[in-house]
């Protein structure tokens, strides 16, 4: 798999997560027979996981810093709405230069995401309000702003290309009868995981993030600018949400304001925690989160493939989540 070289970077403590993922994979291969192991399905699983997965990556930063961000889903909706609106304007203004329009739209989404994330960060660090409350508030604010803008409707993009870009694949090649390829969002997920993991483990900022999350007072006494470190966790999160929002909007080629990004916060947080990051902050790993993301999606996919009754699916899902984390904890 494409992960393996990077997985070596995981220290032994993360071994449990890998083991749990492995067990789950085997289970899914059996339960989801014969569909689960088909290449298209595995690619589907990866793509399905990638939109919230991307957000989970930067959520890892936020949680390591000792915070939480509930506003991610609403923020994605808001950012995507503004981005698509701007893109449509550009399409008109440039007389149909879609490449430029898409670039502009995506830039707006990322820029606005950064700003909104920075707003969260400012309220938390300067306003000294706990992250849970700040992001609970902005969750409501961003969602209703988008609803207001669209009158609870949707923004369809006027660019055909944008939609094609959302479905694009990289390195497609034939393997036997089916073609294997890497969908763009999965590539983005892996690239971002690589970058963020690098930042976390190899840069000063990453070190400070752990220090601040583990013990903010000690960090402060050690001449770390605690406020700044936390601020950037939220700002980076905003930026990454912008990226995810762009990919998701491209996939649907439309932004439906009531539903876009709904309950992303829970999915992202769950993936982070399953990936072994401590809820209280201080330590965690980006690749662990990637594993958490895939674990959650594999569980869902496996149950779908097994064709259980929907209600039973919900019950089994709960059991499997608890079970996999149990395996993981035992082996640590």
């Amino acid at each position, binding site marked *: 798999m494409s992960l393996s070289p990077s997985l070596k970077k995981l220290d032994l403590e993360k071994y449990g997560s890998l083991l749990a993922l492995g067990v789950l994979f085997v289970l899914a291969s059996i339960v989801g027979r014969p*569909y689960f192991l*088909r290449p*298209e*399905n595995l690619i*589907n699983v990866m793509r*399905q996981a990638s*939109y*919230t997965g991307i957000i989970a990556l930067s959520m890892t930063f936020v949680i390591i810093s000792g915070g939480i961000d509930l506003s991610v889903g609403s923020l994605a909706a808001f950012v995507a709405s503004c981005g698509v609106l701007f893109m449509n304007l550009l399409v008109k203004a440039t007389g149909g230069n879609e490449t430029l329009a898409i670039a502009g739209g995506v830039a707006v989404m990322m820029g606005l995401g950064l700003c909104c994330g920075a707003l969260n960060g400012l309220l938390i660090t300067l306003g000294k309000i706990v992250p849970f409350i700040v992001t609970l508030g902005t969750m409501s604010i961003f969602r209703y702003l988008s*609803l207001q803008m669209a*009158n*609870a*409707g*949707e923004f*369809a993009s006027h660019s055909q290309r944008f*939609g094609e870009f*959302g*479905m694009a694949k990289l390195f497609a090649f034939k393997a036997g009868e089916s073609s294997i390829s890497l969908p763009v969002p999965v590539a983005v997920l892996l690239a971002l995981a690589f970058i963020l993991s690098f930042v976390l483990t190899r840069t000063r900022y990453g070190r400070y993030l752990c220090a601040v999350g583990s013990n903010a007072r000690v960090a402060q006494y050690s001449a770390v600018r605690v406020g700044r470190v936390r601020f950037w966790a939220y700002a980076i999160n905003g930026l990454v949400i912008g990226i995810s929002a762009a990919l*998701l909007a491209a*996939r*649907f*080629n*439309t932004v*439906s304001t*009531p*539903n*876009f990004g*709904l*309950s992303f916060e829970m999915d992202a947080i769950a993936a982070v925690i399953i990936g072994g990051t401590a809820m209280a902050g201080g330590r965690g790993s980006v690749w662990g989160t990637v594993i958490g993301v895939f674990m959650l*999606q594999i569980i*869902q*996919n496996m149950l*779908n*493939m097994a*064709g259980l*009754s*929907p209600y039973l699916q919900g019950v089994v899902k709960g059991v499997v989540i608890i079970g996999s984390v149990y395996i993981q904890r035992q082996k640590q």
Partner: protein
Amino acid sequence: KRIGVSMPSATHGWMGNANWWATRAKTDWEARDKNVKIELKFSGTVNQQVSDIEDLLVKKVDAIVVFPHDTSVTSVVEKAYEQGVYVVVLDRGVSKEGIYDVYITNDDEAYTRKGMEWLAKQMGFKGNLLLITGIPSPIDTIRTDTIKEVCKKYPNIKILDVQPGDWNKQKSTTVMENYLQKYKQIDAVYTADDDMMLGAMQAYKESGRKDIKFFLGGGCLKSVIKEIMDDSNPLVKADVTYSPSVIATSISYGVIGAKGDKLNPYVYQVRALPRRVILPSELVTKANAKDFYVPEAPF
């Protein structure tokens, strides 16, 4: 033949009913025909729904019935259609024409129009009206706009307030309690579905007031139809169909389509079935209530 069904999971009574109808259609069809297998997927979010549909496609179903959360499913539905899967789309629609075999829908506009016209008449075309709407969303906007439009015809009907009840009984009770504080004279209350109407009525009962003469919801919850049938509640005299059984009908279309059967030997079309089906919304009163009473339905 295998048919996949993807629809929202139950977070309110009407959708609970729809889930039940889907289950019922599955049992009926599988009992009727050994070769038919129907797989149900209920999803909490549109993202999950898209994943569900993709998973169904991996399983190579012959037909797919989609009750979308919103139009975001368009591209995956298109993918299914292009793969030659028989596609039935209902209610909340896709944003592109011609990527389905059958499109079946309740008529949101007629649904509210019929109800509102009836209510206006009962009110004697005058009085104070309160609205409780659903979760802000496109269909909710259509409905609210239609009501406002109808009321414009009757200048003596005054819409006092519009607040969302989120298709949630408890929320709607709260909204109604607040209304009751705010408005001393209320003549009628229109809620976007029966669930919320029951909540609102609960608040009204608890308040002990006597001014409201009519409650109107919609969607034909069992208990509401029963009251209309028995004429047991002076406040509730009518309902409008917005049938949750639409999903069962759609599944039937899906099954027929997957088998390649023709619905009607006299209709000649490219792909055997009508492309668009709009289910009428009908006014339910004491006179016809028993036709709409399904005792075994959950709601």
